[in-house]
């Protein structure tokens, strides 16, 4: 079983991918990665000369939505291409083998590609006393992760759950679910957040890795800057309506049909950093705000707690540009929402729960007030579910200074 040396370009030729399609793919990746134009040439050169990258893909507490997202990458011929750029050595959803033969493939891949394989993890990992909440072949997911991480080159945490715990880790975190970076500290980990992550970003990350030999630059949360450097609100196709004070007031009203701003329907775009509006989904066809629903900030850490209730209105969204006056904004904007109109730097990250942050602390930022203007959870006299320590924590969420 000799490794081939022909490189990816040769493999692509065998699949009848034209040079033109190949360069188109490189250009698209370059654009997604926000590289300068010479970067496209570098990508092309790297892909032409690379062997297929060995990848071990582990499933933990997951829903397989992140696999499915990768299967949806849609650029003509490129979805298949992914199978030629990487070599899936172990992937439970797709692999032909099962049972102990599957486990043997995992062992063999770890040895054969020691120090060279990319580890992709999908799903959160129940840890410590909760480790028995996920077992595979009789072993805990935590054990398997630790052992498989030992000899990998780098780790891609795919989706919200692998990145920071996702919904299993949200209040009250029944299984002590963790993200990869909270368990593995001696390997580079990149967090492709999103629920699910967008498959285009995963492909772009892998292309970057093949091209430059390292993971792309990340923000304080370990998320790739190319995907999380810009605020959804600032790239939103409905932004002009926000600035003009034109808001959807009811599902299906005239404003909704005309594509007005969804802020009053609970859109979290002003607090969300993701390239969703730019790359969109399913071959660029749509994304949630285009579809007519507010953003739920699914690429933010902790969004299941910090961004809910989803239909509650974000308070204190600054009106931009700064010279806009209330009159210009028009009657659509309620006085309440104008409280605190103040321009502040970007970096609106709501960090509400005490979680070990691997890198620097989160940006001290505003001020997502976890509930005051959020009608449904407000003024309830009912206590939180019976978890005292947790409810204390949730009280703190209100001021947005957790972290």
């Amino acid at each position, binding site marked *: 079983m000799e490794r081939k040396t022909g490189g990816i370009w040769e493999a692509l030729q065998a699949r009848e991918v034209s040079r033109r399609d190949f360069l188109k793919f490189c250009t698209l990746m370059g654009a997604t990665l926000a590289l300068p134009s010479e970067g496209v040439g570098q990508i092309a050169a790297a892909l032409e000369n690379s062997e297929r990258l060995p990848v071990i893909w582990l499933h933990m507490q997951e829903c*397989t939505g992140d696999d*499915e997202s990768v299967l949806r990458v849609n650029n003509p011929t490129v979805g298949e291409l992914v199978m030629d750029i990487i*070599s899936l050595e172990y992937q*439970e959803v797709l*692999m032909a*083998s099962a049972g102990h033969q599957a486990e043997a*493939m995992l062992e063999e891949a770890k040895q054969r590609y020691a120090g060279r394989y990319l580890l992709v993890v999908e799903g959160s990992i129940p840890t410590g006393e909760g480790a028995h909440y996920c077992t595979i072949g009789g072993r*805990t997911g935590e054990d398997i992760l630790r052992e498989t991480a030992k000899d990998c080159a780098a780790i891609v945490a795919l989706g919200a759950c692998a990145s920071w715990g996702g919904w299993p880790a949200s209040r009250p975190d029944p299984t002590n679910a963790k993200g990869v970076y909270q368990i593995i500290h001696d390997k580079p980990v990149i967090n492709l957040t999103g629920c699910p992550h967008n498959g285009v970003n995963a492909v772009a990350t892998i292309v970057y890795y093949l091209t430059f030999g390292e993971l792309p630059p990340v923000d304080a949360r370990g998320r790739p800057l190319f995907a999380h450097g810009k605020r959804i609100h600032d790239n939103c196709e409905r932004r002009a309506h926000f600035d003009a004070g034109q808001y959807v007031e009811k599902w299906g009203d005239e404003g909704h049909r005309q594509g007005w701003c969804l802020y009053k329907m609970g859109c979290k775009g002003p607090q969300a950093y993701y390239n969703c509006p730019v790359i969109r989904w399913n071959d660029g066809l749509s994304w949630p705000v285009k579809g*007519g629903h507010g953003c739920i900030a699914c690429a933010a850490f902790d969004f299941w707690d910090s961004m809910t209730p989803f239909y509650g209105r974000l308070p204190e969204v600054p009106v931009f540009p700064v010279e806009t006056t209330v009159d210009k904004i028009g009657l659509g904007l309620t006085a309440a929402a104008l409280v605190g109109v103040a321009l502040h730097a970007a970096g609106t990250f709501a960090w509400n729960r005490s979680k070990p942050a691997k890198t620097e602390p989160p940006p001290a930022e505003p001020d997502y007030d976890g509930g005051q203007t959020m009608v449904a959870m407000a003024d309830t006299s009912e206590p939180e579910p019976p978890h005292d320590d947790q409810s204390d924590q949730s009280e703190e969420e209100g001021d947005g200074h957790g972290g």
Partner: protein
Amino acid sequence: MAMADRIVLDPVTRIEGHLRIEAQIDGGQITDAWASGTMFRGMEIILKGRDPRDAWLFTQRICGVCTTVHAIASVRAVEDALGIQVPPNARLIRNLIMATQAIHDHVVHFYVLHALDWVDVGSALTADPAKTADLAASISDWKGGVEYFRGVQQKVQKFVDSGQPGFLASAYWGHPAYKLPPEANLMALAHYLDALNFQRDFIRVHALLGAKNPHIQTLAVGGVVNPVDPNSENALNAQSIAFLRAKAREALDFINRVYIPDLLAIASFYKEWAGIGAGPGNYLSYGDYPSDGSGSPESLLLPRGRILGNDLGTVLPVEQDKIKEYVSHSWYDYSGGDGEALHPFQGETNPHFTGPQPPYDFLNVEEKYTWLKAPRYEDLPTEVGPLARMLVAYASGQPRVQELVGSVLENLGVGPEALFSTLGRTAARAIETLFIAEHVEGWVDELAGNMTTGDLRIHAGELWDPAQWPATAEGYGWHEAPRGALGHWIRIRDRQIENYQAVVPTTWNASPRDAAGQMGPYEQALVGTPIADPERPIEILRTVHSFDPCIACAVHLVDARGRAVSTVKAL
């Protein structure tokens, strides 16, 4: 790995989630079997105290393969609790979203998850492309030809020769249970690749109607949030209708010219599997695809009903209060003792792991051995899924289903009893895909008609504001998910979720024993299955995959002290 005659298959691959099968082998066949779900997350406790309008966004994330299904069941449950009836356009858009999911999911299951149980990739590499082209042309006019099949063969050969065969490597190639001639293997392998392309393109219907896939984002309690307006670029308009119509026709084309011919061709070599893999013989369908807002069973395209003991002469009604769950062999305790079953409204989930400490070789199957509960209808183990739906429709006299089932049986030269089997499940899934796909364009036309007559309503707005809600409410939402009957039960108090329960298709099918020791459908279906080589039990994969397992859904919840309060299961 064997304890004399006990074999373990873990991980079961090409499914959603973490499933383990232990089976007792004697005389070359399975004499006893246990199915275990080995992963648990805890959705229901996480939902408690939250806004019921948010629930669908949470529950949808139970599963990313059958994405949409827990979303649909959830909004229906809240609407049932509050007495909300959605406008016609919302019903139509939901039907289209559900049908798209069913078609996509079934095609992906057949080709990506199930096909390699029947199709030997190793053998495909030895096929004669010219003979393959002849074979393909004899069953369908789908694209083919010598060059096409030679190209596929060369691509795969190159892939294998690369020394990095990756996910296509398998110790099962060459197993004596593979029966297809090399040419049929090559044809199916080519269509595996075609199916990957089809699914990527077809699911863009969800991008149009759901804003994205996986995990759509256009539902809302009370309807949908896709604006509809023929005169707006920012709404579903004439262009959208044209797109939907085109995709509906492409899907029908792929199913008629690829999926159905492949199913028949492959099945004709595996007819013995029409006598293997029978489940408990009890089938349940909640029914789905309403044609009006009445909520009545008569309005459903896929009929509601139950069949007992394989008796296609009688279709029994479905009553929600007859559904209960046992934990006698599941890692939970009931406060009233494990001998009783509980209805979802009264459900408890007190998880209590009593299995062997990992790493372990075998589960203690005499005691508790899984994270799945055991749902029962009037104490009977019951199978759900495409086979259950097609049987209920067939026995209910649904004319088109009778016609399709009849033609498949005739083509294969088998009688209706062949349906109660591994092969029957796989065939029923294909028949259902075609049946549903044939109705998609009708819903598109209806939506277009409403646009023309100016009915642009998409949402019942009156009860959107929780201030209008009663202090307490409870309800349930049913949906026929691709994998079978799905139900969500919700109790609302003071505008918050007080309790939330889901009883999920794979929980029905992959359930363990109950208090009376009755096996779940997977377990029962495995008993009697021949095993040619205990080291390579491909026959287990065939029967288990015929149910299309989705284990992520089979997960229950615990509170912060490690006590489960309620349960959510995986599809």
